[in-house]
């Protein structure tokens, strides 16, 4: 199995308005960045060169991991998407 493909099998109705918003400044001083490896959908990317956190909400599985793992409360918003938007499981 090609792991890069695994993400393509899940369906989404993407909301332009993100349901998770984070303050990247908080991440700059973070000593652990558990979100980058614990997120099952690769939504968090930390660039060591630019010292910058990038978050994309598109492929978010709404699993809750980052909400639990972030110990610095970097979120200015963490809620579920508006009704009808976000991940749409068919079979699981």
């Amino acid at each position, binding site marked *: 199995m090609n792991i890069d493909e*695994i993400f393509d099998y*899940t369906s989404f*109705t993407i909301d332009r308005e993100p349901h998770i918003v984070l303050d990247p400044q908080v991440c700059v001083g973070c000593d652990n960045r558990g979100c980058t*490896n614990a997120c099952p959908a690769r939504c968090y990317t930390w660039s060591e060169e630019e010292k910058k956190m990038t978050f994309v909400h598109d492929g978010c599985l709404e699993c809750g991991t980052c909400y639990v793992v972030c110990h610095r409360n970097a979120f200015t918003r963490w809620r579920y998407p508006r*009704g009808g938007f976000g991940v749409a*499981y068919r079979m699981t």
Partner: protein
Amino acid sequence: MSTAYDAIVVGAGPAGSSAALTMARAGLRVALVERGTFPGEKNMFGGVLHRLPSLEEVFPDFWERAPLERHIVKKGVTFMTGDSSFSTTIEAGNFDRPPYNGYTIFRPRFDRWLAEEAVKSGATLITRATVDELVSRNGRLAGVTILDRKGELSAPVVVAADGVLSFTAKKAGLRQPTFDPGQMAVGVKALIDMPRELIDDRFGLVRDQGFANEFVGCTGGVRGGGFLYTNYDSLSIGLVFHLGSLRTSGKTPYDLLNAFMEQPQVDKMIRGGRLQEYSAHVIPEGGFNMIPELVGDGIIVAGDAAALCNATGVNLEGINLASHSGVLAGRAVVAAHQTGDFSRRGLQVYRELLDDSYVIKDLKLYRKAPHMLHNDRIYNEYPELVCGMMEYIYRIDGAPKENLSKLFLKTAREKVGLKNLAADAFSAWRAL
């Protein structure tokens, strides 16, 4: 939008739909509010649906009508290390006779069906509606608002059945403002399409028989475990990780899942299948000690929202506890409508019903299990010990044999340390 109900249920998962069904059958006007385009769209689990004693009471032909997959007749545990594994299975005749001891199901189908049953009983299902705020009037809970919709839904009482993160319980001040990663786990799962005959032949199944296997030692040293369940024509395979351990490991769930699926013995089980869907969800694994305030003024918390999940290691019980607590929440609301008292005191009967049920009794009984499962040796050294011993026992190569108990002690001393072995055996005994 401004409509009055007797009760509002937030979330149409097993807890919410069970609560709505119970209240609707008692004649209450119930709003069952779900953020998905249909109930179940947002929900994943392992998973095996266990028996549901309380729903079976309200709903005698439940098992004939529910959309189920295979019933589980064969249960297995596999200890894994690198390219070796040791498995045990139990296949019991009793598991192959009704009432069956559990079925595989798909959440998008099952949850949708259960919510529709609540609708048939008279509940109003409102989908594509993410509950946002709790509304209070004169110091009393009066309803909820929906994200991006005007107006509100009003009712004197709300059942928070919105799952593990329960923002509803948080807004009511009933749950802790943040979670301890040490009390939470995340599960990731791949659904793999496979022809039914292939599944039957590969796992030794006939008719509607199903197989459920758990794995230890397959999580790259992160605390957790794996599972493989058979559906009619697909396999559910996945891993569960404790979040405290995953966070510091630097490892990713999908790489570990990939490695698990490539392990030679697992690879043989899923070979010939086609990946269908990938999903993930957090599990409240803190057990009894994690349970929040269950009742507030005008509000009751049920299911995962109340951390009512029992993860003892071999079984993961969640849907059954969610559904049971939902039914009891429904009963408590019906009782409160008779007295007109929706205060914390008036709703307290929920707490009593729950304390009296297997939900709290089991969680209390296993209250030490979550602690035991935070022992790294379970996930590393013990699977190695088991596989190493078994390999030795079965290897016949002309080398003189050692006394088995001596060998066990020697291997245990090397891998685990005898003091640790004794301590672990003791804590396992105390916990279980």
